């Protein structure tokens, strides 16, 4: 996508913004018929740019030339169905579209008026044409993601036409820093980065401390594996984050902001940079914004692949140019943060909520959600679920609704086993708690956390002891090593769980794990260590029988734990020898065209034979 900055001049006051908005909304371009093509990271990987090129080319060659605009949008949500195309005039939703389908869509639908049935979404036996009638969308409440999928993320004019920068204009022209903070407090908005700290309170602290400079930081490190909400916001509606940050800067009295984006997100960095440049060109960043005394500018800093840098003090240390090690709090960043100046750090989604909140007013915002947790939450739904993707629901929506109504149930046909929520700091929700409302308090009661919104659904084929081991390995890898409880404690816990997975555990290991977990939780320096034992504690709580099976019966019922499984070649073997050839340790014997045998003493259980066999003649159990 190329830069779309034209020769613009600064917007000097609210009237000019309104005038620009009405000019844009009455423009031919805004009102033209549109084809929306998802240019989210997922759909691009699935080939949506080829589809777009095909549309552009074939429309230009058809009689529709000049009447329909082909528009790249941010993430439309159902990544697993990509590339996704929506026909604007009648809201038709096409899935898994390939370049060769474009001709059909143009000729039959756009010209002929008949939808193309084989590209429609199937619910049971019925094909559903309208996007708004798909269960995936019907059951959501897109507030923060309202622009995602409707606007072109690299065109600030699209954002302004949809009411963008009105909240900043309102804050600067008719509110004071205090009234902005009061609105945010009244809304009950809590940080979406994991800990759920009330945003208004945080801003209030930073406002209180006087200094010649203060900083506002946006946490786009999104390190929880299985989470891609922040990525999708930055890629799909980057201006909402810029606007939210500018409002926050006005509230706390800052003139410089940084967005810390993880290195794995090149597309987010690219689009955010374009958005920043466009905002500067319109005078929405820079000096005397909206003709007031308020100055604010933004810079992107890229991460370099360290999970701990998502922790607030580590992120600050990293921007300062150091090893990203956390430091003790207090002093809290609100008092002494970046370069020892008062600093506010919020998550991408938190900032993206702000323009909406200021436009509506805090009390209106607080009408959505539960008693204690307000607004909506975006979840990244992944794992063995039919429609994995990006979803937004009111806080407090039951887990079952996400997995079954929105996600379309389990993709493998096997029963649901657990949903992992909150990443390495979180826990697993078993089937008997599928009706848990997704809010901070209810999840804590089950030993999980809301976290940033990664939600990974697992079916019966996942081993819960192995899942615990997986997260311990993750935190072991990512522990910065500064404090002993986290560095050594998690290593010791991993040794024990490794041992259990290898069939060498003892029953006393389970108590030892709980004891160690307590120490690591209480004594670690930062949130990484303090929450690292959660995946173990939560699987111990809900799936203790699996641990016991591994220890006492030396059995892994899911055949995931390598040391506890056996590979066997069945009678279906026709002696093709491909397994024998790939076996790295020569554990497979047998003459050509004769039934082969695995020597289990030599077998290292790498699984290569199983994935090589074309005749389904190898099983593991």
């Amino acid at each position, binding site marked *: 996508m190329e830069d779309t900055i034209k020769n613009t001049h600064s917007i000097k006051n609210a009237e000019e913004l309104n005038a620009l908005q009405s000019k844009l909304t009455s423009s031919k371009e805004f009102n033209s018929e549109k084809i929306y093509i998802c240019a989210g*990271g*997922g759909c*691009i*990987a699935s080939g949506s740019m080829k589809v777009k090129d095909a549309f552009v080319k074939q429309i230009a060659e058809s009689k529709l030339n000049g009447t329909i605009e082909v528009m790249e949008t941010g993430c439309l949500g*159902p*990544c*697993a169905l*990509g590339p996704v195309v929506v026909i604007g005039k009648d809201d038709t939703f096409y899935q898994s579209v390939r370049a060769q389908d474009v001709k059909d869509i143009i000729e039959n639908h756009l010209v002929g008026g008949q939808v193309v049935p084989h590209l429609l979404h199937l619910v049971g036996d019925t094909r559903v044409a309208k996007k708004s009638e798909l269960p995936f969308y019907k059951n959501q409440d897109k507030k923060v993601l309202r622009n995602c999928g409707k606007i072109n993320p690299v065109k600030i004019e699209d954002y302004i036409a949809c009411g963008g920068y009105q909240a900043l204009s309102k804050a600067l022209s008719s509110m004071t820093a205090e009234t902005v903070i009061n609105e945010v407090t009244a809304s009950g908005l809590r940080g979406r980065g994991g800990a759920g700290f009330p945003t208004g309170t945080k801003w209030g602290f930073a406002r209180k401390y006087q200094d010649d400079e203060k900083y506002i930081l946006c946490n786009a490190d*999104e*390190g*929880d*594996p*299985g*989470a*891609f909400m922040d*990525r999708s916001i930055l890629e799909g509606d980057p201006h909402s984050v810029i606007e939210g940050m500018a409002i926050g800067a006005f509230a706390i009295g800052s003139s410089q902001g940084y967005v810390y984006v993880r*290195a*794995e*997100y*090149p597309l987010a960095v690219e689009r955010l*940079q374009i958005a920043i440049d466009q905002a500067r060109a319109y005078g929405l960043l820079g000096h005397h914004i909206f003709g007031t005394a308020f100055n604010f500018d933004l*810079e*992107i*800093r*890229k991460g*370099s*692949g*360290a*999970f701990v840098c998502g922790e607030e003090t580590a992120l600050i240390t*990293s*921007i*300062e*140019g*150091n*090893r*990203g*090690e956390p430091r003790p709090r207090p002093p809290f960043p609100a008092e002494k943060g970046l*370069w020892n100046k008062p600093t506010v750090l919020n998550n991408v989604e938190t900032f993206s909520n702000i323009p909406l909140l200021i436009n509506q007013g805090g009390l209106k915002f607080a009408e959505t959600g539960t008693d204690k947790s307000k607004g909506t939450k975006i979840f*990244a739904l*992944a*794992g*063995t679920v039919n429609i*994995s*993707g990006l979803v937004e629901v009111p806080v407090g929506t039951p887990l079952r609704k996400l997995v079954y109504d929105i996600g379309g149930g389990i993709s493998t046909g096997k029963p649901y086993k657990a949903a*992992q929520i909150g*990443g390495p700091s979180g826990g697993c929700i078993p089937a008997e708690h599928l009706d848990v409302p997704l809010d901070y308090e209810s999840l804590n009661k089950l030993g999980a956390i809301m976290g940033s919104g*990664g939600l*990974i659904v*697992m079916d019966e084929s*996942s081993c819960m002891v192995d*899942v615990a081991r*997986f*997260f311990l390995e*993750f935190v072991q890898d*990512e522990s910065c090593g500064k404090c002993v409880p986290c560095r050594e404690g998690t290593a010791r816990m991993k040794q024990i769980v490794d041992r259990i997975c290898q069939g060498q555990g003892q029953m006393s290991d389970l108590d030892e794990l709980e004891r160690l977990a307590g120490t690591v939780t209480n004594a670690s320096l930062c949130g990484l260590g303090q929450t690292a034992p959660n995946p173990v504690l939560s699987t111990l709580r809900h799936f203790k029988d699996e641990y016991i099976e591994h220890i006492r019966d030396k059995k892994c019922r899911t055949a995931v734990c390598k040391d506890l499984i056996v590979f066997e070649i069945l009678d279906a073997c026709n002696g093709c020898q491909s397994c024998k050839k790939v076996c790295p340790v020569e554990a497979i014997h047998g003459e050509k065209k004769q039934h082969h045998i695995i020597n289990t003493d030599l077998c290292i259980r*790498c*699984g*290569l034979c199983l*994935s*090589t066999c074309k005749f389904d003649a190898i099983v593991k159990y």
Partner: protein
Amino acid sequence: MAKVEKCSCGTDEEGLLERLTEIINTLKDKPGALIPVLQATQSLFGFIPQEAILKISEMLNEPLSKVYGVITFYSFFSLKPRGKYVIRVCLGTACYVQGANEILTALKQQLSVEIGETTPDKLFTLDVGRCFGACGLAPVIMVNDDVHQWVKPSDVKKILGTYSRRKVVNKEEE
């Protein structure tokens, strides 16, 4: 942040070091410049060579120990040359529960290297990642900036083939 282009004056170290000097000059007055400079160095050379470290330490007036300390802390910086294509297998949760380990095994076997190693022809480096934010398409691997989704162990050979064939054609597009 300054855009770093691949050097067009050839790939000799001298030319690249000169280019690095220019980059450091544009970045060095920024507060906290060390990490952006190292990121630029990594994308310029594909790794962070000894000479570059000396130059960075001198020009930014940072002790060598600190520069090394920062390089070794972050997984994106490499002190060893890397292959032309860095293959990263996602071992994030969504990919893990959908079979990422088997893909890793298949890659190790096809390339005959372990994690972090580079093939003798300097074409591929095998590495792992922790979620690329494409969990909806799990399991996922990345080859440089390309995402490959729903990978099966049996796809590995084909994917590698498309890159080794590209070797002769031309340089990868940035």
